[in-house]
């Protein structure tokens, strides 16, 4: 199982957002997408998810153009955690997680086998069992994000696209959410592509980083390759100092104020 972006070009309101971006994504790997605001990260994720179409180029899923894959078939393979997470709706946590089963249902809304155990497992993994009867608008932001991830688990995809999954979460939730995603990714051999704003978190969790700048890939490779102060200054216009994480050995960037 693999995914390939092939010369993707996209314009939004007349502006070139992605400029002929090509990249190959392999199974059983955790990719991090970084880059400054407006670099085209979310646009690229929308194209990879198949909900938006590029102006030129194509996305290939196992060598098949994603535009040709029926929506439900695609949703059985690929799940997306959107920026901003789930809206505060009146459905209960359990009902929302059960919505993840939609692509597996026939036209009458039934499934071959009872999905209850799959939903239970997703709730347990995310520690939401005791909240399953609560309505989404009664939850905190962090709990709602866990519900969103539980919904993706119920979807049982082999590709996971995450758009800023940790934004607005406190550090406790950030770490536990990414821990969960990585454990899940390792267990099932998922292909994960996550847009992350926190470069140090990206370095801790990702196998490979993809740095987008002005609609192009500015750098790609292991965190060590990409998180070079020179590359970072080029992209963000900010000076940093690179050090090693004392325990994991991952590269970490220290910010330094100009004044």
């Amino acid at each position: 199982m693999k995914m390939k972006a092939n010369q993707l070009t996209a314009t939004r309101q007349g502006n070139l957002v992605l400029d002929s971006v090509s990249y190959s994504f392999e199974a059983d790997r955790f990719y991090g997408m970084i880059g400054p605001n407006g670099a085209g990260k979310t646009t690229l994720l929308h194209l990879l998810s198949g909900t938006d179409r590029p102006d030129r180029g194509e996305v290939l899923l196992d060598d098949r153009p994603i535009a040709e894959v029926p929506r439900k078939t695609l949703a059985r393979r690929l799940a997306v955690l959107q920026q901003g997470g789930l809206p505060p709706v009146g459905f209960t946590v359990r009902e929302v997680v059960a919505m993840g089963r939609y692509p597996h249902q026939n036209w009458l809304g039934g499934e071959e086998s009872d999905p209850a155990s799959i939903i239970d497992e997703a709730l347990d993994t995310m520690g939401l069992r005791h909240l399953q009867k609560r309505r989404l608008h009664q939850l905190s932001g962090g709990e709602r994000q866990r519900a969103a991830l539980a919904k993706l688990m119920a979807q049982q995809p082999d590709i996971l696209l995450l758009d800023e999954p940790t934004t607005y979460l406190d550090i406790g939730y950030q770490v536990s959410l990414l821990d969960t995603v990585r454990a899940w990714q390792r267990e099932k051999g998922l292909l994960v592509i996550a847009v992350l704003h926190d470069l140090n978190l990206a370095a801790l969790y990702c196998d490979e980083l993809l740095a987008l700048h002005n609609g192009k890939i500015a750098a790609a490779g292991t965190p060590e390759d990409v998180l070079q102060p020179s590359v970072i200054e080029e992209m963000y216009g900010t000076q940093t100092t690179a050090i090693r994480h004392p325990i994991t050995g991952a590269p970490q960037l220290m910010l330094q104020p100009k004044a």
Partner: protein
Amino acid sequence: MLLLAVSIIGCLSIGSAGLSFGDVWGILLHQLPGMPDAEANWSSGEIAVVTQVRLSRVILDVLVGASLALAGAGFQGVLRNPLADPYTLGVASGSSVGAALIIFMGWQMVLGIWTVPLVAFSTGIVTLMAVIWLSRSKGVMQIETVILSGVIIQSFLGAFVSLLVSMSEGVVNQILFWIMGSLALRSWEHVYMVLPFLCVAFPILLFHGQALNLFTLGERHAANLGVRVERTKLAVLIVSTLLTAAAVSVSGVIGFVGLVVPHVIRLLVGPDYRLIIPLSAMGGGVFMLWADTLARTALGAKELPLGVVTALVGAPIFAYLLHRRMKVEGGGRE
């Protein structure tokens, strides 16, 4: 379901002809095959009141109420807007223009009793096509644009109706009465005009119930879960509009039912469209039945405009339910 059955039985028995509960049901039961002829016990006039006038009207009440409430649920689901109702897309204004024009010109009988319904239906559909044409670009309908296009068309056509009303002298009341909605003097033909739409639309909407649930999370969420968003939007909008146009063409513009019944159902059973859709149909039927029974009996022989009754009765009920829920949930948002 039980409430619907009880309501039908009850409202059938209420009326100005002075027949008793027993009379009404005696006559109806005698219509069943194998029963002795009803004329032995009742006059042919009494039989006609029950089988021709009252039964058809009661059934039409239920059908129109169900259609409007279903359409309302469909529009609210797709447009994800709590203020959406069957008239949001301007269908009712389109139908009103057609009907007002026919009444203004005095052409009501050109095609028999079908004239006003047929013209109102057609102009309603033309209006929908105009709205969809206005709001589509590159095969995608933005919800905000759909609503705005509906508002624009609605106010334009509304002005046109007002123009006709102000220009006409003798028929002002007739036009206004049509616009305010009424189910007086309707017959079985009108029932047959609405029934097929309801029979087709109900299963289609029910089938889209789960997709509408996913819509509440947002269109992109729905797409990522495998919903064909544009197709679903178009299907639900068209089906709901056909229902509305069919209902409006026989009854005129009856407000409030399509807006409030789905909300009341939502307050009672929660946000799941797989429940909201069938229960709205039933609730709309029951609500309309009682509203119309009130409209035809409250002032004795004089009929009240049905649209006035639905709003007068419906608004306080809705306000009470809303208030009660806010107290229970401490003001949580929908």
